[in-house]
């Protein structure tokens, strides 16, 4: 057992995955991930190429190039760095490259802020990446390793998201698997989709027209929508692959993280608190308080945000008295993104409870078990008085009037 920060756990996972190319640009709170990796590359401990770049856009571009020719690659970023990458985030997914990127979640500017919320990665929801959220440092290490197997199986890039500072800079005990078990779990990357071959040159990523079209050799190439539906099917396939990979990892290391979702005291719960990331861990503490008051509360943790595990959510929430969904992000002009997805998943489902939303923790605003418990008590009171639709609750807001 080692004691390490979330950032060190992410770096350790990349090393265990035997990444061959790393390109990243420093940004708080992600910087220690690549500082650690660059030190290992410099000392020879990690036989990889570390490419220092001038921006996050270039960092992901280097990863795209290296992944295209078959290297196992890694990068990490946060907040405005991810926003700056945005164009290449979409490119990496559409080009079906098995890139793994850690996101130390941080609030987006303006106003400038370096502290935690999940607006950065949630804002990349529709880019076609798999997004996994971690609740502690052990899960960061394990999920980052799992992410390579998921990405390489489906040819879809994976973001491994963890809360900035709350996890990225907090020391926790972490069990580091031995290299042999991870080598067996994650064999060397197979050949890329298009091998670079001067005897058989190809254009990789040329313009694609609306409709399928025969190229000059007579081969019919897919149109834009055909490529997009294949991408969507790969994301939906991930609903099966993510739990499968978690199960294989459990055989290799003895640790399982539940695949798409996880539950805490769900069996008899009347009120279910839904959350992703470290807040879900806090919610398990809130549930203990609520249970001591005689309130049957449980937690549904969202591990996979994309693909969204709608079936698992329906199964977990059917027949409850109320579901309270916490978001550390907001779709401005509507509501929290996870809440909107949960509500949509429950629409028309049998025995759907009222689904209430709560926005919390933006820009590092304190949110602890007591805030979660208070919000759960209000949700129960509203549900008991017949409220089924309610405005988003803002947790620990300090605004007069």
């Amino acid at each position, binding site marked *: 057992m080692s004691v390490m920060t979330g950032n060190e756990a992410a770096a350790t996972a990349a090393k265990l995955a035997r990444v061959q190319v790393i390109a990243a640009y420093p940004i708080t709170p992600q910087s220690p991930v690549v500082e650690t990796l660059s030190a290992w590359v410099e000392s020879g401990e990690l036989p990889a190429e570390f490419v220092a770049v001038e921006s996050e856009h270039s960092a992901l571009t280097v990863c795209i190039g290296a992944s295209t020719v078959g290297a196992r690659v890694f990068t990490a970023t946060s907040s405005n760095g991810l926003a700056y990458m945005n164009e290449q985030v979409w490119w990496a997914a*559409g*080009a*079906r490259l098995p890139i793994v990127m850690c996101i130390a979640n941080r609030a987006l500017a303006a106003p400038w802020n370096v502290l935690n919320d999940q607006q950065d990665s949630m804002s990349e929801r529709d880019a076609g990446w798999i997004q996994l959220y971690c609740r502690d440092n052990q899960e960061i290490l394990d999920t980052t390793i799992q992410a390579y197997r998921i990405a390489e199986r*489906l*040819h879809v890039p994976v973001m491994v998201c963890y809360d900035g500072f709350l996890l990225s800079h907090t020391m926790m005990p972490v069990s580091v698997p031995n290299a042999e078990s991870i080598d067996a779990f994650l064999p060397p990357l197979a050949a890329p*989709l*298009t091998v670079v071959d001067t005897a*058989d*040159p*190809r*254009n*990789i*990523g*040329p*313009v*694609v*027209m609306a409709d399928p*079209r025969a*190229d*000059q*050799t007579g*081969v019919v*190439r*897919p149109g834009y929508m055909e*490529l997009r539906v*294949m*991408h969507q099917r*790969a994301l939906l396939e991930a609903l099966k692959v993510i739990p499968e990979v978690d199960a294989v990892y459990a055989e290799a290391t003895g640790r399982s993280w539940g695949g798409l979702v996880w539950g805490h005291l769900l069996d008899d719960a009347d009120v279910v608190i839904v959350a992703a990331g470290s807040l879900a861990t806090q919610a398990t503490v809130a549930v203990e308080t609520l249970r001591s008051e005689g309130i049957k509360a449980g937690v549904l943790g969202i591990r996979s945000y994309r693909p969204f595990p709608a079936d698992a959510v329906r199964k977990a929430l059917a027949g409850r008295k109320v579901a309270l969904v916490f978001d550390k992000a907001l779709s401005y002009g509507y509501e929290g993104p996870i809440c909107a997805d949960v509500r949509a998943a429950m629409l028309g489902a049998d025995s759907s409870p009222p689904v209430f939303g709560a926005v919390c923790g933006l820009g590092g605003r304190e949110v602890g078990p007591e805030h979660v418990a208070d919000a759960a008590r209000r949700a129960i009171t509203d549900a008991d008085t017949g409220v089924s639709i309610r405005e988003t609750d803002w947790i620990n807001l300090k605004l007069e009037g």
Partner: protein
Amino acid sequence: MSEDEISMSRPSVGEAGRTGDWRNSRPIVESAMCLAVKQGKVTCQICWAYCPDGCITRSIGPVIDLTYCKGCGICAQECPAGAITMVPEAEHGVCALDETSEGEL
């Protein structure tokens, strides 16, 4: 998964379709002003080097393939002799429907 599930092609002429259809100005070469023509050898070739669509020949006096030339005007901008002029397509009378191209991309 196979390479059929990504955007990929073998390099070939016109793989993005008849991009000449996009053009609204046509490059017109005044051969007498072209440095290669004046010197009678394959020299200069700046228009060939700069053409982003590879539709100008490397030769004594450029030949521009108007089936694919998008009319970007870079050749006219870069020609050191000022031998290439961009002329609006309307002046060539090609804005009327060309029945022979109907149905083609």
